[in-house]
C-alpha cells in the first residue's frame, strides 16, 4: 500500500523557529486526511448503515450532536444502584450499610416509580422534539444552500447579460428593447 509521503523539506528551520517535524517518510496529517476523504466517499456512496451516517453528520453538526446526546440520556430507571462502600473506615459496618441502602432503595422505588415514568415520558418527548428541530434545521440549511446557489447563478446570469448589453451599440440596444 502506498502511504502518504512527507513532502521534501524546504528551507532549513531558523534557530528559534517552529519545532521540526520528525518521522522519516510518513506524514500522519496526510494519512488522516486520506482516511477522512475515504470515509466521506463511503458516506456519499451510502456504504454505511443509517446510524453511522447520522453519527457522521453529527460530528460536524453541533445541533444534531446535542439532539443525539439528549436521545441517549432519555432513558431512566427506577433501579437505584447499591454499591458496597469502598472506604476502609467503614469496613466493619459495610454489610449493615449495604442492607440499609437496599431496603431504603426498594422502599423508595415504589414511590419514585411514577415520577420516573413521568420524567421518562418528558425526556423521550424532549428527545423527539429536539430530533425534529435538528432535522428541520438541517432541511432549512439545505434549502438555504440551494437558494444561495440559485441566487449566485442568477447574479452571474445578470452580470453576463449586462456585459452583453454593454457590448451592443445604443441602436442595437434600442432595437432589442
Amino acid at each position, binding site marked *: *500500500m502506498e502511504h502518504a509521503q512527507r513532502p521534501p523539506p524546504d528551507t532549513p528551520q531558523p534557530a528559534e523557529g517552529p519545532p521540526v*517535524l*520528525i518521522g522519516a517518510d*510518513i506524514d*500522519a496529517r496526510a494519512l*488522516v486526511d486520506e482516511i477522512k476523504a475515504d*470515509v466521506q466517499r463511503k458516506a456519499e456512496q451510502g456504504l454505511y448503515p443509517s446510524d453511522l451516517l447520522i453519527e*457522521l453528520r453529527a460530528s460536524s453538526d453541533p445541533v444534531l450532536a446535542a439532539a443525539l446526546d439528549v436521545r441517549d440520556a432519555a432513558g431512566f430507571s427506577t433501579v437505584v444502584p447499591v454499591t458496597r462502600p469502598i472506604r476502609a473506615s467503614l469496613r466493619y459496618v459495610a454489610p449493615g450499610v449495604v442492607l440499609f441502602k437496599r431496603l431504603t432503595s426498594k422502599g423508595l422505588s415504589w414511590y419514585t416509580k411514577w415520577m420516573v415514568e413521568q420524567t421518562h415520558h418528558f425526556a423521550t418527548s424532549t428527545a423527539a422534539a429536539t430530533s425534529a428541530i435538528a432535522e428541520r434545521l438541517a432541511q432549512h440549511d439545505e434549502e438555504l444552500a440551494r437558494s444561495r446557489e440559485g441566487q449566485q447563478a442568477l447574479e452571474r446570469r445578470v452580470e453576463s447579460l449586462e456585459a452583453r448589453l454593454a457590448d451592443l451599440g445604443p441602436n442595437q440596444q434600442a432595437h432589442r428593447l
Partner: protein
Amino acid sequence: MAGGGARDFIGVAEPAPIRRLRIAVVTPRYEETVLGGAELHARWLAQRLADRGHDMEVLTTCAVDGQTWRNELPAGSTGDGNLLVRRFRAEPPRFGLRAELDRRLRWEVLVDLADEERWLRAGPNSRALEKHLARQGHSYDAVLALPYLAGTTYFSAQAVQQRFFLIPCLHDEPFARLQFTGRLLKQSRAVLFNSDPERALAERLFPGAIARAHVVGLGFDPPPPTDAQLFRRNYGVSEPFILYVGRLEPHKNVPLLIDHFLRYKSRRPGDLKLLLVGAGECEPPPSPHLRRIEIDWADRDAMLMAALLLVQPSTNESLSIVMMQAWACGRPVVVHAAGEVARYHCEQGNGGLWFANYPEFEAILDRLHHDSGLAHGLGKAGQTYVQERYSWERVLRRLEGALGDTGVSAP
C-alpha cells in the same frame, strides 16, 4: 512573554549545564506503588536530577491512597537512592466539604478565591510541609511542585514564592479556569510545561499571567531487550490485540473506546481483541472481544511490544506517559482528535493517527490491522520522536536551562 530560551527541539542550541543545585520536589504522594501520572512524573524527575548530581529532596505527605488520603507511612526523613524524602502528615481530608465545593466548581457556580482555597484545604495538603518550606525554603535553590490541582502545590507556592517553579500538568477542565490556577501561574518564577499545547492552554486561559514559560516535559528511556512472546505466553494472550493502559474512568473516554471497539467487532468479525489495563470504575461489559487484565509492571514493555497499537482516547492529558512509552517500544498510537496534546504529539512525530468519530476509528483500525508496514513505520517515527525530544538527557538539560534562565544558581 519571556521564556522559550530552553526549548531544544532539533536544530536549536541548548544552554550549557548549570552548577549543582539544591532542589526540592513537592508532590502529594511519593511511593513506588503510586502510579498516578503526576506522581510518576515527580518521582522520575527527582531521581534523575539526583543521579545527575543535584542535591535533591522530595517533600511529600505520608499518604499513599489517593482516595482516602490516610497517613499510612511514618512522618520523617528517609533515603531513596541518592535523594532524601521528607514525609509530612497530610491534613485529614474533609470529603463532605470537598464534594460540596466540587459540585459548585464543576457547575460553574460563582465561587471566590477563599472558596477555592477551602476546596484545596479539604483535599490533599499538609500544613507541616508548608511550615517546613516557610522555615527552610530559603535553603533550596528551587522548589518544583506538581500538579497544579493539589493543595500541596498551591500552599507551597504561598510559602516559598521566590523559589517556586510550577510543573502544572494542566489540561482543559473546569478547575483549570479557577482563580487559584491563575494565581499559581502568576506566582511561579517559571512555569515548566509538558508540551506546547499545554502552554498554549495556560496562556489562553490566563493571558499575561505567566512571567516565564518553558516546555520541559518528562524523559523516557529506550526499553531494555524484551520478549513480546513471553508476555503472550505468561498472560495467555494469543490473538492480536489493541491496548488501552490507564485509569478506566469516563473522563478518560474509556466508555467511548469500548463502544467504538464493540461496534468495530460487530462489523469486522475476527480475532482482534481490546486489552484494558488499569484500575477504575468503568467495568467493561462481558464480551469475548474485551479483556481486562492486571499485569506486573515489569512486563509493561513486553506488553506494549506485543500490541498492534495503543489507543489513547482521553482528551484530558498534559503529556500522556503511556503514549511515550508505546512509542519508546516502537508501537503506533491512535488518539482522539479532540485530545489536543496527544494529537499534537502525533502530528509532530508522525507516530500515530487520530479519529473524530466511529467511521474514522474503523478506517484507522482497518489500515493498521492489515498493513503491518504502515504500523511499523508509524511506530518507528514515534520512537525517533521520543528519542529526539524526550530522552532524559534532553529533558534535564531543558530543565537546567530553564532554571538557569531565571537566575537560579548554587548558593
